[in-house]
């Protein structure tokens, strides 16, 4: 793996190279992502049509919007495949500044549902924190590759500081879930960049201590604590987060092996499970498609993770490898947290399930991240 490529770089590589790259793209990864996206579209429709009908809206409204998002996502993925990821990484400092400004700017727009999460652009909402995941991955990949295997405490601290600023801003929105996604990205990338085990452990210990202090001194809102602890005993009360998890588990359990059937199922159709087309979409899969559908989704995610991991293994340079591992951390944490939450083994946080959850910013981000991985995997043949 060449560590010192001095050739001049442009952001988008030439068309001839792109053509050859297309032939080298990971077909397995693409197939898995497309299959999941297809399932996602059907489930978004299944999850939303009843509520939309109930308020007299077009039952296909969210489906149509999600198709648009996925189209944008495919375009973003194609762009990610075509660009030169090393020159892309070189532009990360600028992207970082833009991200921080965008996150700071959020505090100037009035809060919605108690959070400063997005910019309203016409019909669509722009969530900087979603795109920020890529920026954080990019920044850490660039710095990590440069300082690889020499991450002493000072460099490790700087490494953390890069990620820490946006993470803190996201946390203050407040969006605890996405902040945790950032943290998991930091952890996995620091590990791969050669951080010492004791530093990593120290970071984890510091995180726990901070969490304890925040709970102790009331920085976390009561509902946030409730959400985080609800998975410990979800059936204890029919209140709020715990109640939602309780109903979600009932939905998935009621699906059984073969499911209640697509567009069937009292739990997800009768509004017992909340946020069905977003955070709790896996409950809809579980109830309507059963274990057969649920395990298929988990398998497809497993394939995606495997292919991302493989891309990291075969990456021709540390930048590519770190990029892939960052995306892997992003996906694995989101998958495990989101699906785990619907089954009551993880706390309740508002984290999207890649390719399934309805939403523009998260869908485009996920596709773009896959594009980067495809790019890295294809670049080794260069």
């Amino acid at each position, binding site marked *: 793996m060449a560590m010192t490529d001095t050739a001049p770089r442009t952001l988008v590589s030439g068309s001839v190279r792109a053509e050859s790259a297309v032939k080298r793209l990971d077909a397995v990864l693409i197939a898995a992502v497309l299959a999941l996206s297809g399932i996602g579209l059907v489930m978004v429709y299944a999850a939303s049509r009843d509520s939309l009908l109930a308020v007299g809206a077009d039952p296909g409204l969210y489906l149509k919007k999600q198709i648009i998002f996925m189209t944008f996502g495919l375009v973003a993925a194609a762009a990610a495949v075509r660009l030169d990821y090393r020159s892309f990484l070189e532009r990360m400092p600028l992207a970082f500044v833009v991200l921080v400004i965008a996150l700071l700017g959020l505090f100037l727009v009035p809060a919605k549902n108690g959070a400063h999460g997005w910019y309203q652009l016409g019909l669509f909402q722009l969530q900087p924190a979603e795109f920020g995941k890529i920026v954080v991955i990019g920044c850490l990949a660039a710095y990590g590759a440069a300082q690889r295997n020499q991450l002493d405490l000072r460099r490790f601290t700087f490494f953390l500081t890069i990620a820490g600023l946006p993470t803190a801003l996201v946390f203050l929105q407040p969006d605890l879930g996405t902040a945790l996604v950032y943290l998991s990205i930091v952890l996995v990338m620091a590990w791969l960049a050669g951080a010492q085990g004791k530093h990593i452990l120290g970071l984890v210990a510091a995180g726990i201590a901070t969490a304890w202090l925040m709970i102790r001194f009331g920085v976390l809102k009561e509902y946030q604590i409730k959400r985080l602890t609800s998975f410990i005993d979800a059936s204890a009360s029919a209140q709020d987060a715990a109640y939602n998890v309780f109903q979600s588990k*009932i939905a998935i359990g009621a699906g059984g092996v073969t499911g209640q059937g697509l567009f069937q199922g009292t739990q997800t159709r009768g509004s017992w499970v909340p946020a069905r087309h977003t955070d709790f979409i896996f409950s809809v899969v579980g109830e309507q498609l059963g274990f057969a559908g649920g395990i298929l989704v988990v398998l497809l995610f497993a394939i995606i993770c495997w292919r991302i991991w493989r891309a990291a293994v075969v990456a021709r340079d540390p930048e590519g490898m770190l990029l892939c591992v960052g995306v892997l951390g992003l996906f694995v944490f989101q998958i495990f947290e989101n699906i785990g939450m619907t089954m009551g083994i993880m706390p309740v946080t508002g984290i999207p399930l890649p390719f399934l959850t309805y939403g523009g910013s998260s869908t485009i981000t996920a596709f773009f991240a896959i594009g980067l991985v495809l790019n890295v995997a294809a670049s080794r043949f260069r």
Partner: protein
Amino acid sequence: MNTQQRLRVIGVIVVVLIAALAGRLGILQTVESADAKRQAARNIFDTEPIEPTRGRILDRSGRVLVDNLPLNVVRIDRKKLKKADRVRTLSRLSALLDVPYYLLERRLDDNAGGEFSPREVARGVKESVSIELAEHPERYPGVAIGSAWQRVYPNGNIAAHVLGYVGKVTAEELARQPLALGYARADFIGKTGVERAFERELRGEPGAELITKDRLSRVVDREVTKEPVPGKDVRLTIDLDLQKLLEETLVQTERAARQNVDADNPAVFVKATSSAGVVFEPNTGEVLAMASHPTYDPREFVPSITQERYDELFKGEEKASPLTNRATFGLYPPGSTFKPFTAVAGLRAGMITTQTVVDDQGEFVREDLCKRRVKCRWQNAGKAALGITDLRKSLRVSSDVYYYEIGNKFDDLSKAKENGIQQLAREMGLGKPTNIRLPDERAGAVPDEAYRKKLTSLYGRKKFPNDNWFTGDTINVSIGQGEVLTSPLGLARGYATLINGGTVVDAKIDLEIRDRAIGGAVATAGDASTGAGAKPPATTSTLAPVNPSTTANPAAPTSVAGPTVPAPSTTTVAATELIVGAVGAPDLGIPPGTTLPPIDAKPTVENHLDFNENDLSVILAGLEDVTSAEGGTAVSAFEGFPFDKCRVGGKTGTAQRTGKQDTALFVGFGPLPNPKYVVALVVEEGGFGRQAGAGVRRVFEGLCGLPVNPVRSVTGGGAEF
């Protein structure tokens, strides 16, 4: 650790995490699936009971005495009302229902009788309330609108003691009821009277409804899984018009009695604190009317009564326990009304004949007892000397001395006790329950030595120190004093035994239990067998007045026919036809033209005695003299009564009670020669028995289709009692 190794660690962690997801998914959707399916069903399905419509209570011709009014109720299911929503929801409800917040809260938190069933917080709510609750379930979590009924009394408080009232089932009742009856804590149950005695028939069976809901508790679907079976109607033996007449009469009799002065203390007026009366069919045992005064209004118990109101209405000495049905629960010494039983006992034992005469000098003395310095003198009231007295006269003038002589003979003949007065009185039904199907009957007592010993052993020597039977005790019993106790109903039944020729019949309050759904052509099936007498009463708007010479109904069952009395009519319908009195268009509870099914009027016979026909006729003659012959104790009460149209006999009783004014009693029967009615009337602290006779007279005016006059205050006559 080099980079490749670090990558491998990441790979392992990823595999572990994804395997954990797959494993959890597998467990959730196989092992835990059945449980989750149940939970899911519980989420959306709710079973709600459908209250059956309670049966109505009808009078004997089908007029409605107790009906149901369907209404809406508001219930709160506490399982579904979250703590966080509680204050907001109750505040909204309070405004919507116009019920104070604290009251809603109290009803919601009322835990008596089980924690889990929904609480009823309001009933009889307006339609607008129902609509608001149905349209905005999200504003009222856990609140549901349901249907219920409540009792209505088209005739006000008429027959309150017979009908009784319903109330919410109590924890105690729930614990006592077999679970199979399936009462929930919001259910109503009969508390007293017919409502309680016929609870099983009246209630019906609750149905069930399966309700499908979404998360916001909006009802998506309703499906009746079990139809409720409505309660059956109970048709009583009571005649509404006669009942009204009797109740008015009680009030009038008390009022008239209060114009008299107390015989023992001329400085005070008679108190007449309370009274009770019964109209009894002597052959069938049917209770045609039964009243107790003071009374209460069952409407006070609808839908329920507060403790404060209950205390206000019913507590306190001066209120004289208006909830008590004195006709069955009140026990009174019968006094002189007991004399015919002593006479029959004396005749049966051969101690007297109808010809036996006693020279009544106003006093009976036992010299031997005087020497022993115990009570040895028994006097007539006012020590009146009534002269030469035979059996017939003894009844007319109510000579005590005559009966002291009989009592004294039984007292001497200690070995003949088994053939004594008490034995005979019990054989005729006194001191025994009439087995009327009402929850509050007391049997009374005819005391003897065994009775005293039983009381002492049951309740202790402290309360009943006297467990021996002494010389002289039987003398007291002979005139219905000395611990002899009977309810007005029991007394009427005792006279019925005398009049119907010796058959002790059970008292009856119900004619028929009928399905409400049954209308139209029900009755055809059994018509032929009941004979000519079975004319449907409901179709006749005016009932024929009594004809004293009515011939007996030929369709009498043989079991009742006594040897000395002409066969009595036993078809109740025939009896109904004889009931007249306060008319007025019957408010029929059944559609016009409906034929009431024939009633099996066979009475339940407890015992039968064979009386000597001659003896009985002398006794009846003596009793007829009481009202209508010179010197009869009730002649003043029956002054001007048209005996040519309706012959009525009877017996006065003026019973002494320690610490109280005398109890006035009268038992009348008629129309002779084949009496269809026995009327017993008791006025507590009412003075002379003849005043009660004045009340009975008025009832017979109604029974015989005569002009009904107000009850007069019967003064004069001095020594009569």
